């Protein structure tokens, strides 16, 4: 595959691996957090950890869209399908996320809810067009990458005059989540971040500058291919060695400082900040999520169906919260691999292969043998 295989090349990987080994000082340890689930997936899928020296450690961050989704939000989506007879459209990853009462969107579908997996928000608009007699709601989740397509869908629905389309908006923002990790009372040792790939194509590299300037943490924005990740780790090692804390961009083929201004304008037109939003693992964070602006309120599923968010406690032994903040590793959870498995996830980190627990279980558990 042209333009893909080049970024997975074994020879180049060995070269980078040796460079990291050479440059990492043997007298210290390096702890870097990859914020995004996309990076977590790449690291696990390609065995990147095997190419790192023992004193360079990767900590999985919270940037997996379904992992940070609290139970109460999935409950809202399920209730729309089961109680309001809505055609509920969701991205594939969301379908297995555990909700209250032993349900998930998949199980709600099995018990009669009209729940459809879609590949894009546009598919949900199309469904609304095809079913004028039914209400169609799109379960809009994800970070800045998936927000512009939701904005497009809403504007499209407006242009088409669709009265049966709405959005359950759970879009969240990356910088407040990174901030929450650095501000957490339990300080974890993180010397730098591998910064988001796709998110940064939208927001650019500028929003990470405070992390370098105010918190003294280097950020290297990296693509989702394994060579991108290795190169970013090497750049982080260099920054730490040099005592620098800068925002550097490894992913120059797709990201610049300003990002995609057209997408930003679109998001700004349709959405506004929520004062507070509860995240799984990170708790209630101010100004960390989006809702529809009043001008688009008619498309807000929460308003249309009177659906209110009810917080729900996680399973008491589930360590997703600590794992999402990098405080614990998946294997430090009592439920890992016995009660909580990809077939029967208890916590959201076990759902998507971007989640720290599912990634370790699926790709890396031979290391625990």
């Amino acid at each position, binding site marked *: 595959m042209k333009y893909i295989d080049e970024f997975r*090349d074994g020879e180049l990987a060995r070269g980078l691996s040796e460079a990291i080994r050479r440059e990492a000082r043997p007298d210290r340890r390096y702890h870097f957090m990859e914020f995004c689930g996309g990076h977590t997936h790449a690291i696990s899928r390609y*065995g990147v950890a095997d190419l790192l020296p023992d004193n360079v450690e990767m900590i999985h961050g919270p940037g997996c869209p379904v992992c940070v989704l609290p139970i109460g939000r999935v409950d809202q989506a399920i209730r729309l399908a089961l109680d309001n007879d809505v055609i509920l459209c969701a991205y594939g990853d969301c379908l297995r996320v555990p909700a209250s009462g032993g349900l998930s969107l998949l199980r709600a579908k099995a018990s009669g809810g009209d729940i459809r997996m879609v590949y894009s928000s546009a*598919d949900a608009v199309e469904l609304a067009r095809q079913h004028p007699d039914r209400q169609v709601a799109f379960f809009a989740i994800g970070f800045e990458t998936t927000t512009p397509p939701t904005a497009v869908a809403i504007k499209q629905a407006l242009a088409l005059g669709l009265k049966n389309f709405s959005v359950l908006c759970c879009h969240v923002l990356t910088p407040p989540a990174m901030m929450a990790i650095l501000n957490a009372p339990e300080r974890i040792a993180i010397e730098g971040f591998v910064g988001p790939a796709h998110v940064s194509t939208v927001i650019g590299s500028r929003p990470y500058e405070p992390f370098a300037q105010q918190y003294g943490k280097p950020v290297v924005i990296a693509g989702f291919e394994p060579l991108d990740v290795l190169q970013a780790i090497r750049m982080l090692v260099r920054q730490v060695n040099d005592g620098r804390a800068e925002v550097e961009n490894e992913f120059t083929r797709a990201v610049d400082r300003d990002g995609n201004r057209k997408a930003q304008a679109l998001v700004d037109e349709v959405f506004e900040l929520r004062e507070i939003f509860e995240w799984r693992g990170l708790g209630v964070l101010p100004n960390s999520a989006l809702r529809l602006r009043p001008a688009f309120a008619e498309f807000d599923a929460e308003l249309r169906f009177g659906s209110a968010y009810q917080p729900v406690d996680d399973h008491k032994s589930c360590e997703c919260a600590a794992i999402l903040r990098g405080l614990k590793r998946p294997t430090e959870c009592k439920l890992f691999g016995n009660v909580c498995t990809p077939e029967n996830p208890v916590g959201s980190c076990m759902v998507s292969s971007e989640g720290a627990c599912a990634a370790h279980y699926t790709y890396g558990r*031979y290391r625990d043998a």
Partner: protein
Amino acid sequence: MGATAMRDYSRPLDLKNGRVEMAHGAGGRAMAHLIEALFARRLDNEWLAQGDDGAVLPAPGAGRLVMATDSHVVSPLFFPGGDIGCLAVHGTINDVAVMGARPLWLSAAFILEEGFPLGDLARIVDSMALAAKEAGVPVVTGDTKVVERGKGDGVFITTTGVGILPAARELSGRRARPGDAILVSGTLGDHGMAIMAGRDSLGFESPILSDTAALHGLIDALHECGAELHVLRDPTRGGLATTLNEIARQSGVGMLLQEKAMPINPLVAAACEFLGLDPLYVANEGKLVAICAENDALALLAALRAHPLGVHAAIIGSVHEDPNHFVQMATTLGGKRIVDWLTGDQLPRIC
């Protein structure tokens, strides 16, 4: 004056506009007509022509019988490279053949949904008939039921196959041994991606064709090459990864695969990349996994490649001792990872 045959008063089936009706499954004249005009005529052979409730078949002289059954539910029914008809023939022949047996006969049971176009049904049965003829494995008995509209998905087909296994031949998922070599007969994931591309909801067009094929000819060639075969299996649902995990568990061994040795059509690789899927978990319908003694790997590879269905065959890994029965893979990048069981359905990732 002797009796003359009556004129044929039966009206021909309307394959252009006709549809399956409840009467076609009700046991009366309409059903008899459908069976005669649509099924028996196309699948024609001496056993089916007996027209009885079952087929009377010659008892095999030697060896043991192998029997396998498979239900086919596929959407869309017609996909690039095949349809549910030939799939139902190939799938069951392959299940018999990977046991080491020579497939002899098939049965076919149809569950039809009321309202299904008769023309489409005829296309499906034509495709079955052609596949059975090419494979030399006739459909000797069958059944038809009709369910009300909304209670089926057009057509479901269950086929059962019977074959004969020579006395000395022993193939089983339990026979993989440490040191054995693991081979595949060709590119992985073609069928599953052809099906996905054929679904309207994806809005995705590609020239990928299903690999649906009967493998007993290829398997014959493997037996003839003299290699010490331990396991044969066709990696259908759940793809290669699932099949290898099944074998690893059955045999109580581990496996180490080489990512760079995996034969994958670049179009399939690109489509999987685009959709966030892993081709190792995507279904095949005309591919074989073969596990053999280490020293015979090259002979087996040569035998595979000499057959038209095995030109892209490759040695992809080896069997090891492992109490955890892990299937692991050395990645092209130089790392290692587990190739795990498939969890539920493969769901595309968001980012």
